[in-house]
């Protein structure tokens, strides 16, 4: 039932974003504003899931929005919007991952500090969740982020990552097992 709702929402988003982008290509300011506003929320979710408590999260979101702005003429209305959108975000993410490597230690220290300063249970959960994702390999993290957090199907995610669906499922299974073990060890 839950997956059916997710699937319906996905189709609805796909159609709406596609229509908004077509109107944007024609110069409709309101449609474009609405589209970018909606996409920025999706990008934020994606970046948070991938990088956790990034100190330059807002810059990264704006950089991704700028990439979409510059690439808006490459969207073909006869093709699906989500694969186009996620390809841009995925490639931007790779760039960010490279940069994030150098900041990883700083981010980890910041996260520790945040945790020490706050006793808020929800915040701790969020940080723990992000840490659990960091214990995964890049491949496993991408698989889990795309399917469990972004709501993509395994087929869509496998196409986006350029691997077969069975490979993706394997990464997903190994990643989830790793998270489970890590979670149990923490408890």
């Amino acid at each position, binding site marked *: 039932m839950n997956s059916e709702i997710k699937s319906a929402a996905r189709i609805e988003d796909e159609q709406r974003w596609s229509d908004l982008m077509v109107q944007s290509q024609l110069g409709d300011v309101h449609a474009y504003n609405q589209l*970018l*506003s909606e996409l920025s929320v999706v990008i934020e979710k994606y970046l948070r899931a991938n990088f956790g408590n990034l100190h330059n999260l*807002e810059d990264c979101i*704006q950089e991704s*929005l700028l990439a979409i702005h510059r*690439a808006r*003429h*490459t969207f073909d209305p006869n093709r699906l919007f989500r694969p*186009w959108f996620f390809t*841009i975000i995925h490639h931007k993410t790779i760039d960010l991952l490279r940069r994030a490597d150098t900041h990883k230690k700083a981010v980890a220290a910041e996260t520790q500090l945040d945790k020490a300063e706050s006793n808020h249970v929800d915040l701790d959960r969020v940080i723990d969740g992000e840490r659990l994702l960091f214990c995964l390999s890049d491949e496993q993290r991408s698989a889990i982020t795309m399917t469990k957090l972004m709501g993509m199907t395994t087929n869509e995610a496998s196409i986006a990552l350029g691997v077969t669906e069975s490979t993706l499922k394997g990464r997903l299974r190994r990643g989830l097992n790793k998270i489970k073990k890590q979670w149990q060890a923490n408890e």
Partner: protein
Amino acid sequence: MKTSRRNFIDNLTTELTPVNAVNTRVSAMYWFASAFALAIIIFSLTGPFRSGAVDSLLSSPQFFIETVIGLIAVITLIYTAFEMAIPAPRSKIRILAWPVLILVGWISLYLFGLSHPALEPSMLGKREFCYVETFLYSVPALLLGLLWVKKQWPTEPVIAGALVGVAAGVVPAMVMQFACMYEPMHILTEHILPGLSVGLVGALLAFIMLKLR
């Protein structure tokens, strides 16, 4: 939503100008026509075409097939290069399979021609520096293709650049079929090889031009 992001989106929206959605097929056909037109003009200005070369298309089915497969190879190469400049999830192996297969098929025809040439091998129409000409005459088409790719959003710029390079190199290599001597070994080493090497130049230029996007 944070105020800075709201402002950023508002700024992007204010700058909005209407754009034409790209059509890869149409672009590929424009490039194809322009590349051959440019090559034919340059070849015409730099020397004569081999006498009877066009007639050979009708008299030798093998020569006709070599030419047609070559044309198809150019179209698939440039179409694939332009497709790679459009953001979309894709398997590199799957998208490269067709252009590479057709290109290999085209080259194989000349390898077959070593033992069974399409036309009687001769020195008729030989150009002294055909290997240099093939390389140099591909430059306009190469730059044209790379500029087009640069205007899009290539996810694999180096591969796209290499494909544009090979396509641009194959164009003069094909025109050489009509402008230079016909002998399969000569074609393979003096026309096709320099043409394919433009792929390396394309990849290198793409690396420099498109990585700075």
